[in-house]
């Protein structure tokens, strides 16, 4: 299929470009046509038709892919560029005023306009897959065939008693489907009615051929969807003409808004269908077309989208196209002014319902700054972790001979209040009579520290570890029971990491521990694992020490230099003018 079919005037057109899906053309509420790039997910261009408010755009169809013109035929040399890219270029827009505009996305300008054929609004436009011919169907019940080489109307015929709401040209370019009251199939060579189908009770919004035409013409199928109709019907064009009714139907949750279809080339190949409904859901179908089936099919997968707020709201889908492999779908969702385009790689077909949550900007800015910088900035927030040398995780954890994960028990302390009170009392008593109870205080500190370590109480630990007096630290450590030594070392390590300003205090504690309890620590079997972090920290510090000393020296030099130059400025200039001038004028 060259392009997507037209869509009814009730909804805003939103169409992906064919083949490579490079662009998404959206005509938003403000009447502007915006082309979005699906690769970079940014707006590519914006076009305001000259009569965008009176003659709003009702339907969009991408033209067949433009291939870059080959030069004169000559012998191909090595490393000559090949024109592999197939760019979607032209875009046909039907307007409510009855004209058809052709817009060139490569040039960013209007290519030409086709008018003076329809007396009422255009409902649908469809390109011929091969020739440069365009078909448009209108409210004035006519179908017009445009010759694009000359930009003139080639022929025009009355298609139905009611407005023509949808059109579709068969993949081989020989048949045309039109939908008015009934669905009619026209032979494009003779412009004669070929077949008639009963159609839907409401306006048909979608017509797509589901198969390329096989040699026996019994295998030609097409699908149709209509407004207010929660069904997609499949019709078979049969040789014998007994094809008034639909053969298969697919159920939807709401009326279809955007239909994408991968036609099957043979009986062994399934037709894949992606339907975006009015309620914003996407339904995927996969079906082998062979003859009628009474029971309607339900979707093989339904995709919904929601935002990331606390009470998630659904995000409506705008359009979806199927990728070349069966697992990927290209989605456009959000609103028409700023659609978000995403390639969903693995739509899980084993699950019937998929809900994706996406963070969509809710604030809308009507004036959009087009990005001319071509730079994307990835998100860097405070949640990201920074590992510098010395922090755990920067070096591999040291592992001892036997690997044991010491399970850390964290008791939820219930006696928090009481300890805090106790601490307060001690503080009071300490301030009231320091000198007398100095020894008692250190004793209390040791007890407190043990309590704090056991209960993991941050308050107590902070109080104790903030001590600045060297003697107090020494005595406290000396009185510490052996079982509390290891937890203390760990705690000190943590403190050391978390608050960089208290580092020097922690070093004092560590020093005291090592002075008093080295023999005990050395006797521990899993010393390496327990103290690995500490070891790495010390190591990295030692490595940095050299550099830091250098830096310190340089800074010192600079600072003293500045200081001396400042002070030399302070010294007032020596006054060279003479304090007293004696003029001896009376020599003679």
């Amino acid at each position, binding site marked *: 299929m060259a392009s997507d079919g037209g869509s009814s005037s009730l909804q805003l057109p939103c169409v992906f470009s064919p083949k*490579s899906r490079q662009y998404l053309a959206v005509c938003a509420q403000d009447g502007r046509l915006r082309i979005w790039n699906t*690769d*970079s997910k940014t707006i590519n261009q914006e076009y305001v038709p*000259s009569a965008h408010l009176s003659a709003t755009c009702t339907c969009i169809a991408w033209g067949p892919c433009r*291939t870059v*013109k*080959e*030069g*004169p035929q000559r012998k191909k*040399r*090595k*490393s*000559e*560029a*090949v*024109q*592999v*890219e*197939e*760019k979607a*270029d*032209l875009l046909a827009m039907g307007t409510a005023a009855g004209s058809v505009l052709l817009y060139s*996305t*490569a*040039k*960013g*300008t*209007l*290519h*030409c*306009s086709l008018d003076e054929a329809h007396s009422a609004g255009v409902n649908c436009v469809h390109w011929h897959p*091969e020739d*440069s011919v365009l078909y448009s169907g209108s409210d004035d019940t006519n179908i017009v065939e445009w010759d*694009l080489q000359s*930009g003139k109307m080639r022929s025009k015929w009355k298609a139905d008693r009611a407005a023509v709401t949808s059109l579709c040209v068969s993949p081989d370019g020989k048949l045309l489907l039109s939908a008015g009251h009934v669905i009619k199939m026209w032979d494009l060579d003779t412009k004669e009615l070929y077949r008639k189908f009963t159609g839907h009770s409401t306006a048909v919004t979608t017509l797509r051929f589901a198969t390329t035409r096989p040699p026996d013409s019994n295998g030609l199928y097409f699908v149709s969807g209509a407004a207010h109709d929660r069904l997609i019907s499949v019709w078979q064009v049969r040789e014998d003409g007994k094809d008034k009714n639909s053969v298969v139907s697919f159920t939807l949750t709401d009326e279809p808004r955007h239909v994408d279809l991968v036609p099957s080339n043979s009986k062994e190949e399934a037709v894949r269908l992606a339907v975006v409904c009015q309620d914003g859901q996407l339904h995927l179908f996969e079906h082998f077309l062979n003859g009628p089936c009474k029971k309607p099919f339900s979707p093989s997968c339904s995709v919904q989208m929601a935002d990331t707020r606390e009470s998630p709201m659904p995000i409506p889908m705008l359009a979806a196209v199927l990728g070349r492999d069966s697992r990927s779908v290209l989605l456009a969702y959000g609103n028409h002014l700023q659609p978000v385009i*995403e*390639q969903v790689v693995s739509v899980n077909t084993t699950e019937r319902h998929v809900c*994706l*949550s*996406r*963070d969509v900007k809710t604030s809308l800015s009507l004036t959009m700054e087009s990005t*001319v910088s071509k*730079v*994307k*900035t*990835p*998100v*860097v927030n405070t*949640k*990201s*972790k*920074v*590992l510098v*040398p010395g922090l*755990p*995780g920067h070096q*591999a954890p040291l592992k001892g001979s036997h690997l044991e994960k010491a399970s850390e028990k*964290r008791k939820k302390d219930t006696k928090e209040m009481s300890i805090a009170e106790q601490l307060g009392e001690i503080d009071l008593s300490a301030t009231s009579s320091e000198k007398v109870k100095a020894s008692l205080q250190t004793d209390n500190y040791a007890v407190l520290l043990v309590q704090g370590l056991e209960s993991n109480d*941050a308050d107590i630990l902070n109080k104790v570890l903030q001590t600045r007096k060297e003697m107090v630290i020494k005595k406290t450590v000396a009185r510490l029971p052996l079982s509390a030594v290891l937890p203390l070392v760990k705690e000190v390590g943590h403190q050391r990491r*978390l608050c960089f300003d208290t580092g020097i205090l922690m070093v004092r504690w560590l020093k005291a521990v090592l002075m008093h309890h080295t023999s005990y620590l050395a006797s521990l079997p899993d010393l390496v694992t327990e103290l690995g972090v500490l070891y790495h920290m010390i190591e990295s510090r030692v490595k940095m020490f050299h550099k830091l000393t250098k830096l310190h020296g340089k800074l010192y030099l600079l600072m003293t230099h500045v200081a001396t130059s400042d002070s030399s400025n302070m010294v007032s200039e020596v006054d060279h003018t003479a304090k007293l001038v004696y003029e001896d004028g009376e020599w003679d």
Partner: protein
Amino acid sequence: MVEHGDVRVVHKGGSKINFREPALSTDSRFLLCASGESVKVFSTATEECLHALQGHTDLITGVLLRPSNHLQAYSCSLDGTVRLWDFTDGILIRTYSIGYPIYELFQLVAVHLPQCGEQLVEAKELSAVLSNISSNPAASAFGREVRIFRCLEVYFFKNFFLKKDNQKGGKNTFTCITCHPTEDCIASGHEDGKIRLWRNFNHRKEYTYSTLHWHHSAVSSLRFTPEGTNLLSGGVESVLVQWRYNQESQRDFLPRLGGAITHISVSPDGALFCTSHSDNKITIIQSCVKVSAVIQGLVKGDRIRTDLMIEPRSKALVLNGKPGHLQFYSLQRDKLLYNLDIVQQEYIHESGLEQFEVVMAAFDASGSWLATVEERKQKAPELELNLKLWAFDDQKQSFVLNTTISAPHEGRITALCFPHVSDGQTTMLVSTSRDGHFKAWQLAAPGFIKFYLILKGPSWSCDFLGAYHSLVPECCCFSADSSLLAVGFQEVVTVWTPASWELLTTLSQPPGAVRDLCFGRLSCSKYLLGATTSRLLCCWNLLTCSLEWVTSMDVSLLLADPLSENMAAFCFEAGSTDLFVFKPGEPRPLFSHKALCSGRVTHAVFVPREVMLESCDEASQWLNCSHLYFLTQSMDLLTFITKAEEDKLTASSKQLVVSDDVAMTPFHLLLGKHRDQLENPQAESRLSVEPIRQPSSSAGINELLQMPAHVLPSASFLCSMFVQSLLISKEEEMESEKEEEDSDGEMESRISRPEHMPSGESGCAAPALTKEEVRELRRLKKLDHSWMKGLLD
């Protein structure tokens, strides 16, 4: 040896677009730039490449609009030809063969076919003379004689000053030069960042000059706007400076344009400027000094330091681009998608300043993790390294920084790789470094951090530190199922198991350090291949831990196709690179291509195809699953294409012909028909051999037409004189008849006054002029319009 008749090497984009100054079309809608062997025509509105003008067989060295026809342009090339193009339709009109390589194209005015040879040779000699001294002299909007005179004068002038400056030891060598369009003034840019405006230059003895100084280093390009009111200058600072002519203290700046500005050009109508940058970019700037579009090619820094990678989500090619950025390049569309700012620090354009650069990057198999290494080297011992791990956030549809590891190693990181996990989450990354270690990083939940920090989500931390006899690891590779990790420590390949980090075995083939390691895939997964610096390609069988085979070739790059068993080896042999594609288990190569390109190929990548090919031809079978892209030393992106594929492409390429008539605005409805009428004969005469000759009196007519209506005498007064002048004597008619016979196809286009065509039939009549009309036109040309001149005076 398998022949490669069906598989061709083709150029696949990525060529330079900043090589020469681009040309903007008169109406500012198109931009023409020389890009390798073709001229690319871009739309200035949409940044799209409309078409490439192909035909030259060597590097194109200049593009210039044809002054007499705003729809045509000249291009010159090292192949010794000048070609005339219709760039709106992409048609080659004519080729002038010169016979010498042309390095620079000057403004050509009034090209006559018999004379053009001489003229161009002359131009070539000129440029050869000048290129000895400085880069590109430029003169604009002058007649030819005046221009040559000026160029020569400038040349003497340069020589003169160059000597003088050298004696002084100053740094004010000329870097660029431009002429004022209307006044007698030349602006020159200098190495020391000064701009000098030389006035009264025609009188050599009395010239004066004034100096403008803003740039801190060399001025690389200078241009006057077409009216001469502004002077634009640019340099390495990537700031476009707009100086007001005669009020030089007033300047406008447009900073942060990207790479250093190499060329500036201005459209003839003055509506747009464009600047070429050293990072293969053209910025289009509106005359109000606002960037309106950026045409960006594949960014080429001084070198590519990362590997070529394919982003699994968008299938875009990823490599390092701008300093501190990773670029995402669409291979299907030959277009840069975006640059991802990794370093997130302002880049300061100054020579000699070391700044952070992205040197390594890796994607995991599903594209949900990106690891980047950035490096700043001031001195060897003070290397600054950052390893950043970015997670792709589905909700935000963007990469989010997860973990920054500063100084992950003490030495430079030599390799970075993720294991190939087919489904599920990647939780491991291995980095090897010059410091003699390799580290395994693991994604872990924040378990061991106590109650102080609340970290949401998992982060990366070091899991294992490996080393082998204090040798330096150079490369690492995971096996296809990620159960084995091979790390090459100089001569020794060590094989580890990532599950428990045990050293399983060591393999070695001395002498020569292992440069590249690669595990086989699928049925060949028992093989491990390694390329050594001693020109050996070794294949080890991991089941027996023994050497399976070894062959002698200087492999510069070894690559495995992720979707098949094939491996590609780029071998450097006698100044050029050969490619061998082989299966590790089979003795014969599947495909070989001798002398792929000159120089080493060090960057290549297999890109999975969207649709598998079903070719059963032996030589092209290896291309069924993937494309192979590689970068040459000249930074051209090349690939292979099979015959079948090419046939398919040419068969399906069909030109869609759609007429282009925009009749939109009310103004156009009023005026467009007249314009059509004026333009159509011109369009027909486009292919004519003769250039447009201005009749002697056309100036008078033009003057009359441009005159405001209120200053003209009444129409009735004019009419009788005009009709009088239309009456031609008998001899004149005969003469014109005769001329028609001998010069068929020559047609005059410029004067066809609208009064002569009835306005009703103008639309359809214009393309097909009847014989009488042609004759009438010709007669009109012959007319003596001097009566008007008298009238106007």
